[in-house]
């Protein structure tokens, strides 16, 4: 869609990253929000409009799929194999980014935090 569509570049936005991460197990929307807030100690919050938009995008990209839609208000989703693969790749990418920063700060003799 947009020119800064990170999904098409094979990267996940922070929001997509956490949603996908919480959908390793099947969950419905509200539980996804709660899981993420608990996981990050309330530091990462996702507003309802960002949530809805990102879930729709992940569905189109086949990174998640519908698990159960008996209750249209509480549809549950689960990450697909493709989604898990991308998530792993993304974790690796972010891990490397952190590592690079750690190296730079180590050379400067500065401590992180």
């Amino acid at each position, binding site marked *: 869609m947009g020119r800064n569509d990170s999904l098409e570049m094979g990267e996940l*936005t922070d929001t997509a990253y956490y949603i996908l991460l919480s959908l390793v197990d099947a969950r419905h929307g*509200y539980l996804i929000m709660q899981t993420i807030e608990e996981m990050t100690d309330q530091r990462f919050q996702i*507003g*309802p*409009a960002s949530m809805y*938009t990102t879930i729709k995008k992940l569905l189109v990209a086949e990174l998640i799929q519908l698990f159960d839609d008996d209750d249209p*208000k*509480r549809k549950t989703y689960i990450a697909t194999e493709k989604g898990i693969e991308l998530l792993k790749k993304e974790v690796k990418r972010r891990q490397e980014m952190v590592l690079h920063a750690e190296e730079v700060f180590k050379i400067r003799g500065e401590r992180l935090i």
Partner: protein
Amino acid sequence: MKKVKYIANGGLAFFEEKEMKKLAEYAKEGWVLEKFAGLGYKLRKGEPQDIEYALDYQKGADDEYFAFFEAAGWSHVCSAGNEIHIFSAPTGTKPIYTDKPTTVEKYEREKKQMGKVALPFFISTVVFWLVGIFNDLGSVPESIAILFQVLGMISLIPLIFTGMPYLSYQWKLLKLRKG
């Protein structure tokens, strides 16, 4: 005492934040938004409320969409054509958009939507006016040229009403991408 008040809509495509703030100010005085009414809003007198308003564009919003907002503490107030939705929540509630990529998408969606409506009027306006210009060169009978000029004027009106919001969204996206 009056129970209902109608106020003008200052142009959601141009002054979204200002409009939402204006509605919040009214709510503080007890004038609470009830629904869209024509080109404005219908407010109803009630208890003063310390709330915020938020606007979203979502064509064909479904049950799940509204359930997400409800779960996050945002109550659905009203919608126009199941495309423009206004929500309210106590001041300080986590915003409905929490990241830039999805905020960009909100305006991308609406820009596209508006562009689809504006395009035919843009084409017809250009075509009608071109015919008018060709008439000055003497290649078209005058009566037809006048008719086309009038049609060009007529199609300019909807073009302004759709083209201006389109440009406004474009401008907003430019600012979002830079900032």
